[in-house]
């Protein structure tokens, strides 16, 4: 079956030659820059600033023509897989299509050329946008108020933990522990440590869900809260969420919702209705702001009413019929960003929400879950799901059988899939699943693309049985082949200047 928009050619356009670095392309005295003609008096710098502050030599930056600059970075772009190029079923990252209209909006001068210290009276449009987005995010999560400052999910997590801390301290309590399931993202425990809490890990049950008895066993009045992803990282909905919430609340703890998987439940169920008190969202996942090769994202945090007064400030709020101002909550934990958060990312997310509305967001969740379940069933004979039950927006397959029978591991499947023109799934996560292949197709992939992906995975399984060494040799058609990662760590070359011979 054909695959509209689904597969990429992963071979570089013009052969396999490595691209020189921009420094290697550099020629002394060549230049590209052009600046405004200003007629400002050209007083020598040494007469404006004491020479003792000034460097002798300019910084050793590349010296290239504009034409060489364009060629270099365009060639680099041809060595890069992306959502626009093909299907990117990277589990837990929600690599959905990013509507181009949102790029256009984020590029409007009336948003992109506004200085962050512009007085509120002259930036009412921005404040209105932020106030509207806060309301939208609260409607989606069932929360009362939100901060838009966190620049990514992990920043949101840490903000949430500091809110947890402020809440308990305001009640005169010094709780010390935060509970995390063993299926959690690594950012959760890392954030807990930075929040000044001790991590208590609880095991998952045989279905990949929170083990309620194990949870109850660790709950006491030292527990500040629990961090949960729901659906969890195995792609499964925590069906006992009401009991979990009650158990945590009964000891005075709070429930933190990691919004990594929010895409699955838009318009179906809200974290607030499940009993969560604090929610972070990944706007770059759920609301389709582009991932930028690793960022920028945005990780707003929404909270229940009883936590609102602790939110970071300032927050853009409506102050009159048609006027907006900055308001800092009464007992705010303080600022967490240099300015107002990743504002242009926030603008894209607001545009996405205006485009989709209540009806469109529900369709997003439905099709995301439909696509994942279709793949789960379609591939059941070749790649059994780690947990034999309906999944939400993503499905975790296990390659244990391929490994046992043919010595072909999840990593080999991932690398082989690159040759097939797809990005690889997330591998070896969640940690509780052996040889995990975590596939999140997202709602923007067509049935034809899903079939092509399934067919590619089946071809890989067939090859694993017939020619395991061939499968393990993948990828062969990519710009580079498997890397010597140990060498990168052992002989660290992290800049052009590290290439000089290293000491033994």
């Amino acid at each position: 079956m054909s695959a509209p928009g689904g597969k990429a050619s992963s071979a570089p356009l013009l052969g396999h030659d490595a691209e020189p670095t921009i420094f290697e392309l550099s020629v002394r005295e060549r230049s590209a820059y052009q600046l405004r003609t200003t007629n400002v008096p050209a007083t020598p710098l040494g007469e404006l600033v004491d020479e003792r502050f000034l460097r002798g030599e300019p910084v050793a930056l590349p010296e290239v023509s504009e034409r060489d600059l364009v060629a270099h970075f365009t060639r680099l772009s041809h060595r890069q897989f992306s959502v626009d190029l093909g299907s990117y079923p990277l589990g837990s990252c929600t690599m959905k299509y990013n509507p181009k209209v949102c790029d256009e909006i984020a590029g409007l001068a009336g948003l992109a050329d506004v200085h962050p210290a512009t007085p509120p009276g002259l930036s009412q449009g921005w404040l209105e946008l932020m106030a509207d987005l806060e309301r939208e995010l609260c409607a989606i999560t069932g929360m009362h108020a939100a901060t838009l400052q966190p620049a990514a999910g992990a920043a949101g997590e840490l903000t949430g933990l500091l809110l947890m801390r402020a809440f308990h301290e305001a009640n005169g309590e010094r709780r010390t522990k935060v509970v995390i399931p063993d299926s959690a993202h690594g950012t959760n425990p890392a954030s807990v440590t930075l929040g000044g809490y001790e991590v208590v890990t609880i095991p998952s049950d045989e279905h990949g869900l929170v083990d309620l008895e194990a949870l109850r066993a660790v709950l006491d009045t030292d527990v500040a809260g629990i961090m949960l992803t729901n659906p969890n990282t195995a792609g499964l909905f925590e069906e006992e969420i009401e009991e979990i919430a009650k158990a945590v609340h009964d000891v005075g703890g709070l429930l933190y919702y990691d919004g990594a998987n929010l895409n699955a439940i838009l318009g179906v169920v809200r974290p607030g209705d499940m009993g969560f008190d604090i929610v972070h969202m990944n706007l770059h996942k759920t609301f389709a702001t582009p991932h930028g090769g690793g960022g920028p994202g945005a990780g707003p945090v929404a909270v229940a009413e009883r936590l609102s007064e602790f939110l970071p400030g300032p927050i853009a709020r409506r102050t009159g019929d048609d006027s907006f101002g900055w308001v800092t909550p009464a007992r705010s934990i303080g600022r967490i960003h240099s300015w107002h958060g990743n504002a242009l990312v926030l603008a894209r997310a607001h545009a996405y929400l205006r485009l989709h509305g209540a009806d469109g967001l529900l369709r997003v969740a439905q099709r995301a879950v439909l696509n994942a379940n279709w793949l789960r069933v379609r591939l059941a004979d070749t790649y059994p799901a780690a947990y034999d039950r309906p999944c939400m927006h993503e499905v975790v397959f296990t390659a244990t059988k391929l490994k046992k029978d043919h010595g072909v591991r999840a990593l080999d499947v991932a690398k082989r899939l690159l040759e097939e023109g797809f990005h690889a799934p997330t591998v070896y996560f969640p940690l509780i699943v052996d040889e995990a292949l975590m596939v999140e197709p997202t709602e923007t992939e067509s049935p034809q693309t899903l079939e092509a992906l399934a067919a590619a995975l089946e071809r890989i399984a067939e090859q694993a049985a017939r020619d395991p060494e061939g499968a393990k040799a993948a990828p062969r058609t990519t710009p580079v082949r498997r890397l010597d990662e140990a060498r990168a760590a052992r002989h660290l070359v992290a800049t052009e200047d590290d290439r000089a011979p290293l000491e033994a």
Partner: protein
Amino acid sequence: MADYLPHTDAEIAEMLGFLGLDSLDALFATVPAAVRLAGGLDLDAGLTEPDVLFEFTQLVERNRAVGAGFVCFAGAGAYDHEIPPVVRALSSRSEFVTAYTPYQPEVAQGVLQAIFEFQTMVARLSGLPIANASLYDGAASLVEALNVATGATGRQRVLVSSGVHPHWRGAATTFARGTGHAVEVVPLLDGQTDWGSIAAGEPVAAVVLAQPNWLGCLEEVAHARALADAHGALLIVCSDPVAAGVLHAPGSQGADIVVGEGQALGTRLGFGGPYLGLFSCSRDQVRRLPGRLVGETVDIEGTRAYVTTLRAREQDIRREKATSNVCTNQTLMAVTAAIQLSWLGPKGLAEVATRSAQGAHFCFSQLAVLQGVRPATSAPFLREFAVVTDAAADTVLARLADEGFLGGVAAASMAGEEDGSLSAGTASNTIVIAVTERRTRAEIEAFATAFGKAAR
């Protein structure tokens, strides 16, 4: 209602049939009925693209963007430097924009190599050997630097100059609620850090200085280094990357960690984000480095290639013992900075810094003679300086806006009414003014004329 979903009704029916389900709703059978949302989300119905675009064109009418009709003299950590069409074109290529973290290096050499080049440029700017692949913004870089310093020394007390951007200091204080760091803010005396004012106390993990500081004043890095040596502490310098084009590299002056805000390297003002946190350090601290690091290696055929390395520091592997919780960073801004710095080259960066300084000093000379205006400090400066006006800063800036100028940043709006960086009683009347290479003599002269009327 707009839609980016490809499925036809017939396809949905076929897929549901394949799953043995009779409705899309049946996909959510594992969600307990008691928590299901009845009645749908409390949001408007979706709109079409043209409708949404129109809505935004109306909304942005209520913002004043900088440009010919609103000439920018504001800075305070966000600068109106030249961003040429070539940088915008290359940095908006969708291969860079719509990829994610390079988990599969075989198909991510484009982003990985661009980050490697970025790391090289940041390391050379800072004068330190190691630079990471970016953090969220300047404030985040400072917070991470404090974590490195406290981790390296096993101490909790950090001495932060009040010349450090007030919002960065604010973030450092916020995150100290979790880490338990004791953040001690050191006042300025006539625009430069008054290290002599420090009281005796616990052993010090880090001494933090900004060069130039948030009022634009140049600081004596050697004094901070001497203080750090006396305490056995690390020296963290918050370095402006454009100023670094002409100033001594902080690493050459003894900084252990250099952090900075990279917005000035090709990223639009964007109401404060997304920006770019710069972070570089000495080799001693590489195992504590926050965030991603790209290293060079070879593939199995010996071809040069790039990969994220020293991954054992990171949260997805080390979990609660990780050096940082950062995962998603600001890669696109880092790639943009690499392109911008390649466009500028050594001469271009120095020229931007020099012309900015020439503009700032020309502007200062025009303002300093005005009635109702006096310099806030007598300290040396490069492209930014502060003045104290007779009229309240907010009033002066409102009057200047009416004349078509974003006339600077009201110090009190950033630092509050009482801040160690400002002389007592002056906060409400202090304006921080930045001049970049984009300001012409005519603009500066017109600004000075308007300022003279507005300041009293």
